[in-house]
């Protein structure tokens, strides 16, 4: 009896493998868990996806190496694509429908979504079910997204890998993130606590002075690159007075990418902040803008961590960032970066006036 069952099992298994190797990729069911542990199943890798979270399109294009599968994005994502190098790397992305939402909110325009016949929609999961249920009620498949730290970045990459059938590439991306962390740890562990550079990150610098606390992603990045965040006791992102910043006296100020007109010069010419070490020594830098803004978590984060570590310790830490950028852009986006484009991503025009920035300059010849 047992033997027969075993035999049947064996035959059916071998048949299964035969067929699956015959039909290969095309007949693959896709199953993954989203950020809120909902199981999502697709009959095959998605051909048409819609994303609402702003960093999602560039991350998906990095995983897929193409913009073809994305049929709808948030208008805010479109702005990010237009602002940066995405336009050069994926010229077709400009034609993606961005009417599925509106700028001020994440409320989905479900009827517009239906006209796009999506296989799956990625929506924020941390903004209440009010923005999710209408999509479900329309009979569309939803995967929920959370964002803001390294873990959710990896989960997001993984779900994009499953949906597009590019799990291997995602594994390589995540391995690169992990190995960069340990590379950095080796270099920064030898720096004594007293010798660590004091760094604050300003997520707002024009309308108010808003710093990143210790529990934020930016707090984490400062730590990864070997810096010390004097605002670490603050929870989340909080507005502080100029006086508080003077009391902290940061040696480096690291500026956000969100305020369109912000430049290091704005900090240098602020009379209230004139006495800061970071201002006197001209060590204010705005985060680069690559495939996505470098300051929030994204596929290119390891490049930013290395960039930061060189800014914190120009004499002690050095990486060949330009070469690594070329390699990784080739790998992620299938695009050959030109030197001028690297200069633009690193914001040479505005950061060039700050100290030690020439360490990122292209080498002649």
């Amino acid at each position, binding site marked *: 009896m047992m033997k027969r069952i075993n035999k049947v099992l064996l035959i059916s298994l071998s048949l299964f493998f035969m067929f699956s190797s015959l039909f290969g990729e095309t007949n693959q069911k896709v199953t993954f868990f989203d950020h809120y542990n909902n199981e999502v199943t697709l009959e095959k890798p998605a051909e048409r996806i819609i994303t609402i979270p702003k960093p999602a399109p560039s991350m998906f294009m990095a995983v897929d190496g193409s913009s073809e599968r994305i049929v709808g994005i948030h208008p*805010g994502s479109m702005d990010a694509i237009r602002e940066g190098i995405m336009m050069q790397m994926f010229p077709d992305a400009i034609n993606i429908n961005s009417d599925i939402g*509106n*700028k*001020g*909110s994440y409320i989905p325009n479900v009827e517009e979504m239906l006209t796009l016949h999506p296989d799956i929609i990625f929506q924020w999961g941390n903004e209440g079910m009010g923005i999710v249920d209408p999509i479900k009620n329309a009979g569309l498949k939803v995967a929920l997204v959370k964002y803001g730290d390294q873990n959710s970045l990896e989960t997001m990459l993984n779900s994009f890998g499953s949906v597009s059938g590019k799990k291997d590439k995602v594994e390589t991306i995540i391995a690169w993130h992990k190995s960069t962390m340990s590379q950095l740890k080796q270099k920064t562990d030898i720096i004594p606590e007293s010798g660590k550079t004091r760094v604050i990150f300003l997520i*707002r610098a*024009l*309308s*108010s*002075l*808003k710093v990143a606390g210790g529990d934020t992603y930016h707090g984490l990045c400062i730590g990864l690159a070997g810096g010390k965040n004097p*605002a670490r*006791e*603050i929870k989340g992102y*909080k*507005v*502080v*007075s*100029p*006086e*508080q910043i*003077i*009391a902290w006296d940061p040696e480096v100020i690291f500026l956000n990418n*969100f*305020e*369109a007109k912000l430049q290091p010069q704005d900090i240098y010419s602020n*009379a*209230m902040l*004139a*006495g800061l070490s970071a201002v006197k020594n001209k060590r204010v830098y705005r985060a680069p803008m690559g495939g996505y803004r470098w300051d929030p978590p994204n596929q290119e984060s390891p490049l930013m961590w290395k960039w930061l570590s060189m800014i914190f310790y120009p004499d002690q830490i050095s990486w060949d960032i330009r070469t690594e950028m070329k390699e990784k852009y080739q790998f992620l986006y299938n695009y050959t970066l030109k030197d001028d484009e690297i200069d633009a991503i690193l914001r040479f025009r505005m950061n060039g006036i700050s100290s030690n920035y020439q360490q990122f300059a292209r080498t002649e010849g």
Partner: protein
Amino acid sequence: MSSISVHTGRSAVQSQPRMLIWVGLAILLGMTVLISLGIGRYHVDFFTVVKICWSRVYSSIPTWTDTDERVVLLIRMPRILMAVFAGAGLALSGAGLQGVFRNPLVGPQIIGVSSGAAFGGVLAILIWESQILTILTAFVFGLIAVVIVFIMSRTNGRSPVLMLVLSGVVVSAFFTALISLAKYVADPYDQLPAIVFWLMGSLALITYSKVVIAGIPILLAGAVIYMIRFRINILSLGDEEAESLGIKVGPTRWVLILCATLITSAVVSVCGIIGWVGLVIPHVARMITGPDHRILFPASALIGSIFFLLVDDIARGATQAEIPVGILTAIIGAPVFAVLLKRTHAGGWKND
């Protein structure tokens, strides 16, 4: 609303105590300013603060660092001046409005000025970045709000107080909706945080130029309100009584409303919406001085300054992060108001 009567011939507060209130409150304000200069996240010891201030009057060799001086003169001083102007202006407008409308619940927020001005300010953030234009837009929209309130409340050539207050509530709600609309269309990364932060009210980034821009209209309009204090006294007797005494009710009321609008928009455009100061402080002042506007006005202004300055000291000094000052004035103002109301049964209003 019950009418109030005021002794106009003879003041409820005799001139001797009136002087005392003036001087006492002025000294208290001076002390609050001095103490506030010594409070902050960056430590400058108190004698250094005094020496730094003195060096501006009589130049001396500095025994302090550049940073100390910058903190005291560039960061704390303008902020303190702004708090003094804003607190005085808001309390004075509140006292004036309560007088001409003969209603203890009227304040710049109730008659729609605050929301109108706030919408103007939000619009200015959306469209341009100039500080002067922000004040102008805030003022224009504050005025538009008041004009709409005026037209709505006008029946048979008069504006009954109840209609005025109700129209104010309607207009306020309308402009609040427009603010929501503006937030909805604002760029979520760049403009929206600026709008939200500004609406919550803060003095964190006050500079001398902002103090001058907001201070001039506050001083001018404040002076006009103070100048018509006698007329307000008569007006608070009731429209018919005032008219029989030869006061043109309509124009006087409108001069005061315009001045209150100018002050409120100037404050709103620089500090955002600061609630409760204009409503609560006049009541506190009235408890001390009684309803005579000749002394109620200066007392309101001085108490408003002291109160707002102290609240802002908490906002900037209590924790590493700034506490939005609009939240604090509401948290402190609302319960204080409730207690006052309960304890005095609107004391000053029956005080005759």
